[in-house]
């Protein structure tokens, strides 16, 4: 999967999940950068990314990803759509 396209689609998911059309994520984006990114929204975010790309994160990845860049790497490897 093209990594730039993945980043763009990830931004779309973040905008919907956090209800903020101004969000654009980068490799270094973390939960500190987005006000509403708490543990409850994290669950919804993970699910929405899985739905978007037709893949699942492994259990240890769900809480182990350091930033959006790592998330994009996993999506590039395992995304199916």
């Amino acid at each position, binding site marked *: 999967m093209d990594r730039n396209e993945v980043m763009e689609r990830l931004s779309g998911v973040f905008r*919907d*999940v956090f209800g903020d059309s101004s969000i654009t994520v980068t490799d270094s984006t973390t939960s500190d950068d987005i006000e509403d990114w708490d543990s*409850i929204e994290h*669950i*919804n975010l993970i*699910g*929405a990314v899985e*739905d978007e790309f037709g893949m*699942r994160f492994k*259990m240890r990845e769900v809480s182990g990803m350091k930033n959006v860049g790592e998330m994009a790497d996993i999506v590039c490897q395992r995304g199916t759509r």
Partner: protein
Amino acid sequence: MKELEYPFDPALIMRRRRAIKKALLEDGSSRIKKRIAVLAGSTADDVVSVMELFLLDSGIEPEFYISDYNRFYEDAVFGSPELDAFRPEIVYIHTNWRNLAYMPQSPAETAERAEELLEAQRDYFRQIWTGIVQRYGCPVVQNNFDYPPYRRAGSFEGWSAAGTGAFTDRMNVFVSEYARHNNGFYVNDISFLSAAVGLRQWNDPEAWHLYKNAVSRAAVPELAFSVSNIIRSVYGRNKKVIALDLDNTLWGGVIGDDGQEGIELGQETAAGQAFQEVQDFLGGYRKMGVLLTVCSKNEEENALLGLNHPESRLRPDDFAAIKANWLPKDENISQTAQELGLLTESFVFADDNPAECEIVREQLPGTAVVNAETPDILMDRLTFGGWFEVTSLTEDDLKRNEQYAANAKRLSQKKRFESYGDYLLSLEMTAEIDSFQPVQLSRITQLVNKSNQFNLTTKRLTPAQTEQLGKSPEHIAICGRLSDKFGDSGIVSVVCGRIEGKSLHIELWLMSCRVLKRDMEYAMLDELVRRCRERGISELVGYYYRTAKNAMVSELYGSFGFERVSLSDSGDSVWRLDINGYKNKNHVIKIKEYSYGQE
């Protein structure tokens, strides 16, 4: 909202829930506020966030209390300061197979041991339910149980004494029996729902281990919709009518072109069987008090020809109204609504033609629309649409179709009289107006919660509140039943006032629109005044709270001779009547002696 109508896209709802909530809150509709406590054996945040959307969409603005993860038992049995302070109006207990702590650990356990475990499990839930009722006296919605998706011994688990499937079944029988014997206790049937979704899709073991979520992400909206439908029904937000197209909806083919012999209906062809099945299915709605009407582009003569087909299960008499003409369908629905004294938002409209569906959707936003491309799609949408969630079935529901048929006869009589008063006298009406009797409580509660138009304050009551009002020494609460030579309309009006010194403040005044213009409101007022005089009350104070639906009674108190003492910008008004010189207003309804005796 379209996104929240079945069949919805669960992934879309989950992903866009913030935007959906924002749009709902900004749509300008008025909503009743309800405090809902969710006591869950899992993490309930996802379910609650989606329940909020469905409830907002059906006119209820919820405020939630969510128990800490797996504190549902403690909260229910011992209470908590937070929950006490929250004062729930409804409690939803969100548990599933994961919370069946006494589930046998092996199908090899003995039958005696399984029975012990089952009794322990029953007792656990019994404590929860009685705890809530004692502490909060409010309605309870309880999930029944889905099957554990893992089993050790194959089908043996489904039938042997200690099998997980058999244990689940027996718990579900227990939950159902409890519901049948306890008013205000409702079952959210996740046993059926999980089967409809499919156990493999319903469960997500990783979501359980990671977040303690009871069901998969895709199942969250299904579950939230199901429980929201029950809550919506408790507060009287159900649909009341199914308006049906005929050609290719109730039979195959076009009656005007194909003739009675040409349409497909009956056992000869596969399509004919499918249409007969959907007719049988619809006939069952009629028996539970949902009205059926016809809304078809046809000559009336042809419509009747189709409904008189020898294999037709629905007959012309089964419909409360038949509109077979060439007018736009939204106009026909509006007209039917007017004739039946209902709102168009009480209608579900079904048609195989997407263009007809579109025009009704556009013109009548409150009407639910089913594009019934095939008979099985119609049955599926009616099954899962959430429009006819039954939380109680009263005697009146079972008789409703007869009552509307009697109304139609009354209308036809009306034309033969010179004056309206003559017509009313000819109906030979009799009313029984009485205090609330125990057998009437569920009908009274139902009427209070679903009357929108002839309703001065739109105050809603739980069954427990109704019972309390009926007994309260500080209140005068009466309900009226009306019958005439065509039939018994059942309990049609409720009036309740709070006594304060020499005044009675009328908190509740409502009447079923089935008996509009029959002078029943006068009979109620006469009886109210009579009871006030007995108690030494000299003044009535009436309140009108304006809603989007109750304009028809904005001047009711004025028409009774009350004097208006205030009128707010929002249209609410307060009225006063000195009853010293009051003379009875009803002259057409005979008042029957109390059948239950005076208090």
